[in-house]
């Protein structure tokens, strides 16, 4: 396993706003890493830095062993990128898009793109402006999946899509694209939709990384306990991250707690990513 992205102490200031405030994270080959944070947390800035589209004020960043800002042209041949659905030019025809990418990208395999598009209802002669948002995303995905890239970066790729298109998007990505050689870095603030596909979880809040964990460690590190009101006091004594009430029962979220002790108090299960997300973001506020 090699390190594809190595970011250390990245800082970036826009005017008086600190978009990145000492963010450090690593992405290894073969992983699907979710960079998750609320709006304005610095997700897009971090991605832009990774893609060489923005320059960081401080810290060091290596992507595929390159400095993305200085060596963007070399990087562009090995990294694919989908921003949200609005970036395919509206005047472009589907066939033109395929021909163009095939013409300029040395790693593009047209037959893969065709295979994928055949399964959709997209017509080759349509202009992008005539396609629905879901179809535009499918087209963009078809173009990108046909590129043999080492790293695929997705920035809110399903923004504004209906639930069916979102599910389709991630299903295609998993079944048709992902393999041991490929790596995906995805940002989103819709945590639920990526929950089942991620291998690694990175939470970012106000420019800082507040959580960086492989998914398999979520279950061993975090626990959610549901107890009856009379046990609430005992549960509180075990120092939960958060507490909330649900249908007359108390729900606690613990980090690195004694699981045996928790089981003695009530029902223990692995917290969902969104619960964990809420807990971590609240932790930042406190």
């Amino acid at each position: 396993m090699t390190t594809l992205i190595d970011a250390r102490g990245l800082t970036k200031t826009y005017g008086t706003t600190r978009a990145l405030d000492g963010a450090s994270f690593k992405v290894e080959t073969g992983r699907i890493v979710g960079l998750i944070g609320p709006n304005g947390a610095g997700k897009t800035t971090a991605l832009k830095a990774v893609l060489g589209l923005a320059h960081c004020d401080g810290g060091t960043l290596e992507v595929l062993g390159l400095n993305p800002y200085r060596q963007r042209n070399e990087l562009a041949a090995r990294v694919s990128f989908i921003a949200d659905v609005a970036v395919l030019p509206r005047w472009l025809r589907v066939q033109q898009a395929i021909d163009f990418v095939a013409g300029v990208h040395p790693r593009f395999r047209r037959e893969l793109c065709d295979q994928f598009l055949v399964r959709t209802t997209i017509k080759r002669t349509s202009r992008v402006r005539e396609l629905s948002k879901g179809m535009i995303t499918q087209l963009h995905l078809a173009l990108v999946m046909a590129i043999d890239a080492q790293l695929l970066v997705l920035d809110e790729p399903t923004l504004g899509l209906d639930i069916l298109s979102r599910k389709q998007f991630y299903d295609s990505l998993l079944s048709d694209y992902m393999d041991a050689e490929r790596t995906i870095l995805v940002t989103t603030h819709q945590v639920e939709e990526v929950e089942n596909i991620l291998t690694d979880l990175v939470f970012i809040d106000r420019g800082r990384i507040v959580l960086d964990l492989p998914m398999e460690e979520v279950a061993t590190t975090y626990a959610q306990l549901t107890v009856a009101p009379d046990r609430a006091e005992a549960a509180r004594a075990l120092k939960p991250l958060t507490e909330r009430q649900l249908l007359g029962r108390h729900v606690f979220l613990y980090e690195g707690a004694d699981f045996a002790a928790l089981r003695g108090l009530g029902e223990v299960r692995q917290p969902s990513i969104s619960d964990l997300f809420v807990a971590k973001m609240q932790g930042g506020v406190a």
Partner: protein
Amino acid sequence: MSRFLWLIRRELWESRAVWVAPAICAAVIVGGVLIASILHGTVRLDSQDAANLAQVKAMTPAKIEAFTSLALGVIALPFFILVLFTQFLYALDSLYGDRRDRSILFWKSLPISDTESVLAKLTVAVLIFPLAALAAALVTQVIMFAICSIELPGMSVLAGHVWSPIVWAGSLLVMGYLYVASALWYLPLIGWALLASAWAPRSPFMWAALPPLALGLLELIVLRSSYVLHAVGERVGNASLFGRAFGMPHATGFTFAVKLDRDTLTIPRALTDMMRPAEFFSSPSLWIGVLIATGFVAAAIWVRRYRDANS
């Protein structure tokens, strides 16, 4: 096909004005003549016309050829003027357009350097626009002369001179020379338009027009001189281009030094005789302009490369 040619193709997909504008121009010219000829009916030979025809037949070959090349020039001129506007507007919108519709994030996701992107747009502005206009002008000339050959009985007598390959080659040479000269002469304006297009947060036209104007006015107020305004005016005004390229120092606007007086018809036998390539291409102000243009294009590439894609 090389990557650069794909970039050119992509520009042609996006900017159909490259061929639509000259096609409309050709349609207006040909259509106008056709409508006029339908309204007037076919020219018939009456005694007056017979007299005229006799006069025409008596013209020397040199005069006929001079008339022909002048007519060719008159047909070609609207295309030339049109290109000056369309290529500037294209350059002004090209880089800004990618940012306006955010497609810059798509283009930048592909292995295309910003240098290649900007140079492709520059190539389209200074090479493809003129080539398309030149082709449209040539087609229009052929159609117009064909119409005249059918409509005007007297033309058949002159066909040998009117369709003379030498005359047509000369006309093509003059057009080609004019387009090359204007591409070089106006290069700083195109480069400046590209820079404004790469930079402008919105309205690239204002960003292109206001800084030179403001600088000129500032100079006028502070220094009470007008070098900036004069330099810009000299560059923008086509009189200086025609003056330099065709040895017409006193030409104003597009007025050719041709007197269409009935009695004293003083036009050169061929417009090629008016070309002054040696003087034009050795003029320092031409090459200073090219140098400045290079600076503008380099700056446009830099801005395209380092400007934050979302702003």
